[in-house]
C-alpha cells in the first residue's frame, strides 16, 4: 500500500533528499521545509520505495500538499 508524504505546513522546500525509485527507511529525512524562521524536517513514513516525487527544491508548498508517495513494504 502507498503512503503520501504531506507538507505539514506551508513553506518553501529547501532540501530534497529522495528521488523516484530510491529504497527508503522509516524516519529517514525526505524533505526540509523552511517557514516561520525555522527549518522543519519531513520524514519518510514507512520502509519502502519512492513511487513518485511531486516537488523540487525551491518550490513553495501549501499545508497538506502531497510532496511524495512511498510504496510501503
Amino acid at each position, binding site marked *: 500500500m502507498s503512503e503520501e508524504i504531506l507538507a*505539514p505546513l506551508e513553506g518553501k522546500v529547501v532540501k530534497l533528499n529522495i528521488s523516484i525509485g530510491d529504497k527508503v527507511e522509516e524516519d529517514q529525512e525526505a524533505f526540509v521545509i523552511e517557514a*516561520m524562521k525555522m527549518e*522543519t524536517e519531513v520524514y519518510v513514513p514507512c520502509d519502502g520505495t519512492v513511487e513518485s516525487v511531486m516537488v523540487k527544491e525551491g518550490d513553495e508548498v501549501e499545508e497538506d500538499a502531497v510532496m511524495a508517495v512511498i510504496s510501503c513494504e
Partner: protein
Amino acid sequence: MGFLFQHSGLFYITPQIAVMWLIGFVLIYLAIAKDYEPLLLLPIGFGIVLANLPLTHLMQPDEGLIWRFYHYGIQWEIIPPLIFLGLGVLTDFGPIIARPSLIFLGAGAQAGVYLTFFAAMAFGFNLNEAATIGIIGGADGPTTIFLASALAPHMLGACAVAAYSYMALVPVIQPPVMKLLTTKKERLIKMKKSRKVSRLEKLLFPIISTVVILIMIPEAAPLFSMLMLGNLFKESKVVERLASSAKNELMNILTIFLGISIGATMNAEVFLNPKVILVFILGLVAFIVSTGAGIILAKVMNLFVKDKINPLIGAAGVSAVPMAARVVHKVGSEEDKKNYLLMFAMGPNVAGVIGTVIAAGIFLTLLK
C-alpha cells in the same frame, strides 16, 4: 582645553553608572554573540549606555533627542499599537478558526499573568506595578510596554528587558517544564488534522472579533484594533502594499525607536534597586507558570474531547510567536520525528496573543 574638560561628563561618573554600562554591554554582547533577540536587545543595550552618560541630556524632558522618541512614541502609546499592526499582518488565525476550543489554551496560559500579579503584591508592589510585572508572563513585548507606560512607567525598562530576555530564553525555559508535566505517551499523541478554513472565515474573524472584544473590553482597543486591522490587511489580499509596509518597513522603523527609547529609560537611579531583581524573578515565575498552566489545561481538555490534544501545545499558549510553537514542535519531535506539532501549536500561540491583550485590557479597566 580646560573649558572643555570642565564641561565633560568625566567627573560625574559613579560606580552605579559604571554598573549600568556593564549591563548595557552585556545586553549588546548577548544580542551579537548569542543572537538573543538582537532586534530589541541591541538598541536597548546601547540605549542603556547612552542613558548613563552624564550631561548628554539625551533624556532631558522637552529637549533630549531620545526623550522625544520616548515621549512621542511610548508615552503617547503610539509605537506598541503600530507594532501590533505589523504583527496582525504576520499572524495567521486559521488554526484558531479551525479549532476554536484552542482559544482556551491561549487563555489558560495567561494564568501565569494573574498568579504573578498576586505574588508581586505579596512582595510589596502596588497594584499598578504588580499588573505590569504580571503581564511579563504573557510573553508579549509591545503589550508589556503598553501596559507599563500606562500604569508603571518607572518599571518600563526593567519589565521590557525581562520580557524580551525570557522570550529569547523560551527554548531553555519551556522544555523542562513541558517534560515535567507530561508523560511520554501524552507527548506522542498525534493530533487529527484540523478542517480547512475558508477565505470568508479568515476575513470575518478580524472584523467580528474586534467588534465583540472591544464592546466587552474597550480599554483593549489600541492594541486589539491595530492587531485585527493588520490581519484584515493580510486576509483581504487587496492591500498588499499596505500589508507589506506594515510588516516590513513600518515594523523595522518602530523597532528602532522602541529599542532606543526603552534602553534610555534605564538610568542608574531607576534600575539599580533591589526591586528590579524581584521583577526578573517574578517575570521568570510568570513564564514558567503560564507554560505549565497551558499544558495542564490541555490535559484537562483531553478528558472531555474526542480528538485528543497533545498537551505539549498548551505550552505554546505563551504568546512568544512563533518561538513557543517551534519549541513545542521540537520537544514533540524528540519523541517521534514524524509528529509535526508546529501548525497545531500555532493555534494556542496566536490565541495567546489575544489572551495577553485581553489581560492587559482588563488590568487597564480595573486600574487606570
